Structure formats: C-alpha cells, structure tokens
C-alpha cells in the first residue's frame, strides 16, 4: 500500500506541520498571524519571477524567489505601519492583495510561455505534496529541521521578548535581532511549506495549530508541544488522504484536518472548552438553588 516515496512524503509533511506549529505559536503570541498570511501569499510572485528569470523549476531556485518576495512583503507591512497613518490590519490587507495580484499576473504570463505549460507552478497555489521529488523532500527535511532546532534554542529569548519587550531590552537581549530572526524563520517555514500546502492556505498551518493549543494550556512549553503535534498530525493525515484520491490538493485537506482539531479543542478542552464552561454553569446554578 504505502510506496516508499509516499512514506517519505508523509514524513516530510509531518515534519513541516511540526515546524509550522512551533513558529506559528510564536507568531500567534506576537499577534503577527496575519503577517504570516500576507507573507505566504507574497511567495507566489517570487516563485513565478524565479521561473521567468532562470527558466528552471528546480525547487531551491523557486524557494529563493519565494523567500525574497515573502520577506519583502513583511518589510513593506512594517514600513507602511511605521511611516504612514495606516494601522496594521489595513497594511496587511493591502500588501497581501497587491503581492498576490502580481503573483497571479506573473503566473498567467508563465502559463502562456512555451515552457510554462508543463512547469506545474499552478500547484503552488493549493499545494500538491504528491508531486514532491526525493530532492524536494531533502530540502524540506533540512529546512524543517533547522526551523525546529533554532526555535528550541531561542525559546527562552523569544518567550521574554514577546511577553515583556521592555524588560527583555533592559537585561540586554538583542531585541531587534531576535525579532528579525523570528520573522526569517516564519518566512522559511512558509517557503518550506508552499509546495505541499500552497500559498493560499499555508498561513492556516501557522495559525490553526497555535490557536488550538492556546485552548488547552497556560504554559508556553506545553502550548508549543501541542501545537507541534497538531500541525504534525494535520500534515500527515492531510497528505495521506489526498494521496488516496488523485486530483485532490493537499493544502485544503491538511487545513480541514487542522480545523477539525481546533473544533474539538473549542468544544472539549478542559480549560477553555464550551462543554466544560457549560458544565460549570450548570453546577453553579444547582449549588445556588440548593443554598
């Protein structure tokens, strides 16, 4: 049943889910989730440009293109927020739409070009894990491993930086460098994930596991573990199901899986779940009646 290649692809998307669950948690707590969404959409023009300029569709080349426009979009958002009167939400919406629009225009140009028809760049919109080659997977493994290791090394610093930046600066933490490093890692997560999940839904893999984990715990360490596991399961299960039926994009299935975990958390988590809230309410009323 499980061919060798599929097994590797499954492991790859699982690792990707774990990496996204971890970096996603930090960006979620930093209230930067939507910046990740814009950055993911902004990867599309980079992919198309890299292809148009080099004429090649080797993954590392496309990834570099994606990383450049993705990082540029984050920079644009920060620039707009700092130098105009626009608030972050408007800046994010603006940048996301403009970059994605440019991406679609460039993709149309690619598709019209003689080489472009066969390039498979369209798969980057919704993701297609099944198309990943051994070489692609090697890149994914290396990249995801770097993301996970760096996140664990900087755990303590990012925790303090996000929780209390003034104090963090006061004890000599290089705040600006740490922030840049987190942004770089999130862009890296996005770039690593777009082939499997696609630019449109990549941000969901950053946001949903973190949001689910927040409902279960009040500790950052547990939240990271839970979020990593959720992302990993979603990646694994989503890829497996989409591989059973040809034609299904991986991204949407992964996202649906993550969303299911979120919904279960929302209903049944012991701390913030709706069910336990309801039970507490009923118990409280009973006690009131008795007394």
């Amino acid at each position, binding site marked *: 049943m499980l061919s060798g290649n599929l097994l590797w692809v499954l492991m790859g998307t699982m690792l990707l889910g774990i990496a996204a669950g971890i970096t996603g948690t930090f960006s979620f707590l930093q209230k930067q989730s939507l910046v990740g969404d814009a950055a993911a959409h902004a990867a599309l023009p980079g992919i198309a440009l890299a292809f148009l300029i080099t004429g090649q569709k080797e993954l590392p080349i496309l990834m570099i293109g994606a990383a450049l426009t993705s990082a540029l979009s984050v920079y644009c958002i920060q620039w707009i927020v700092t130098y105009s009167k626009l608030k972050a939400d408007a800046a994010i919406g603006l940048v996301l739409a403009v970059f994605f629009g440019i991406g679609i225009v460039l993709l149309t140009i690619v598709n019209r070009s003689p080489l472009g028809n066969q390039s498979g760049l369209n798969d980057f919109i919704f993701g297609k894990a099944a198309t990943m080659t051994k070489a692609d997977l090697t890149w994914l493994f290396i990249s995801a491993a770097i993301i996970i290791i760096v996140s664990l090394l900087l755990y303590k610093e990012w925790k303090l930086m996000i929780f*209390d930046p003034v104090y963090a600066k006061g*004890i000599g933490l290089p705040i600006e460098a740490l922030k840049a490093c987190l942004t770089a890692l999130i862009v890296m997560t996005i770039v690593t994930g777009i082939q499997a999940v696609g630019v449109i839904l990549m941000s969901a893999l950053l946001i949903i596991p973190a949001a689910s984990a927040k409902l279960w715990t*009040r500790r950052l360490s547990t939240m990271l573990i839970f979020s990593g596991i959720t992302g990993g399961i979603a990646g694994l299960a989503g890829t497996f199901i989409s591989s059973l039926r040809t034609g299904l994009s991986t991204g949407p299935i992964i996202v649906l899986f993550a969303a299911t975990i979120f919904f279960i958390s929302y209903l049944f988590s012991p701390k913030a779940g709706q069910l336990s809230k309801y039970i507490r309410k009923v118990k409280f009323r009973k006690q009131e009646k008795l007394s």
Partner: protein
Amino acid sequence: MRALEALVVQNLSVAYDKKRVLENANLIVPKGHLAAIIGPNGAGKSTFLKAVLNQLPNKVGEVEILGKAFSPKSLVVGYVPQRNAVDWDFPTTAFDVVLMGRYGSRGLMKRPTKHDKQLAMQALTSVGMEDYADRSIGQLSGGQQQRVFLARALAQNAEVYFLDEPFAGVDAATEKTIIDILKNLKAQGKSIFVVHHDLQTVKEYFDYTILLNKTILAAGKTEEVFTAEKLQQTYGGNLFMMQAL
C-alpha cells in the same frame, strides 16, 4: 567618588517626534535611598525612567548608574514596568515570570539552572506569592501581578531598582507588602526609585523625593523637598492636595 552615587543624570533631554518631553534634566542621587519620582500627569516621569534605562533611541545627555554608563549586561539595574506594558494573555505562570529575572545572568540560548529556580522561588516567597507559583499570570489580580513583577526584579539581585507606578490599581494590603519589601531593600543598602502618584503617602514611604515636570525641578531628602512651595512649582495651579502637608 562617583561610585557612591546611585544615579547621576546630566543634561538629559528626550523628544518624541518634534515635541520635547524632557529638557535638560540634571540629577544626582546618593546610594541607599528609597526615592519617589513625582510630578503631574504628562510630566515625563515614565519617559525619564525609560531614558535612564536606555530604552529610548532619541535621547541626549549622560546617565550613570553606580558610576558607570548604563549597560544592560551589568545587571545591576532591576526594572518593574508599568502593568500595562505586558501581554497578560501570554501563556506563562507566575513562577516562569520570576524566573525571567535570571535570564540576564544566563546568557543567550542557555537554560536556567537549578540554582536559578531556587532563587526565583525564594523571590516569589519573599513577596508572599509562593502559593500562586503555578497560576497563570493572567488569572492573578492586579496586586498579585505587581508582586510577581517585583519578585522578578528581586530574583535578578540588582543593586538599583526602578519601579514605574507599582501602586497603580493595587489594594491597600498589597501596597503595604510592596512598600515593606522596598524598605527592606533599602535597609540592605540598595537604591530604589519609584514613580509615584499618591502625594499623601510620600512622606510616610520615601526618604528621598525627586520633583519632575519636563525637567528635574528639585531633588533631595523628602523633608527638604516635599514642601508646599516646591510642589506648587511642580504642579502649577492644579494642586488640590495641599492639605496633605
């Protein structure tokens, strides 16, 4: 000789955009005092504190703490921020927050040691919050949060402490706990600076007073500085609290 001074500030000015918030502030405070920084709203008290702690890029002037230019690496400075400077929804426990006070002595990427954890627990106990160690920080009351942050500064084992309005939104019992801890620190020879709002308690709590409104207007022993005339000068016509004197 300068090492005898807790804080020396020379010609300190700060501007936000084009507006000057602090102009030419000069101040010399000897070691071992519990000092109140008082002045009307918008006088630049928090700005002064941030400038002293090197948090602001656009400042001019010299600041020395215990005879040295401010350097975060030295860790002689403990800082308790205003409560609204922190993300209360962040998933962390009271103990974790106190443990953050030890991060500075650990360095990048290194985990806190057992000794760090002991110090953090001691600090938490000294503010009477040991039973709340595992509580999520967002579940604590305002006064409890304030005590946790004080414990974090204690865990850092600093020589000079800066507190930004520690009594804001805090009940009388907590205020008493906090001031007792601060007095205890002073008894150990440490220097403490507190941005303070309640003029009624200045004489009771602080042996040193710094009057601030756009610049340092007066500084010295509380009985010499906390006078009707000088307060009038600091607060302008808006002072209703004269009876407190």
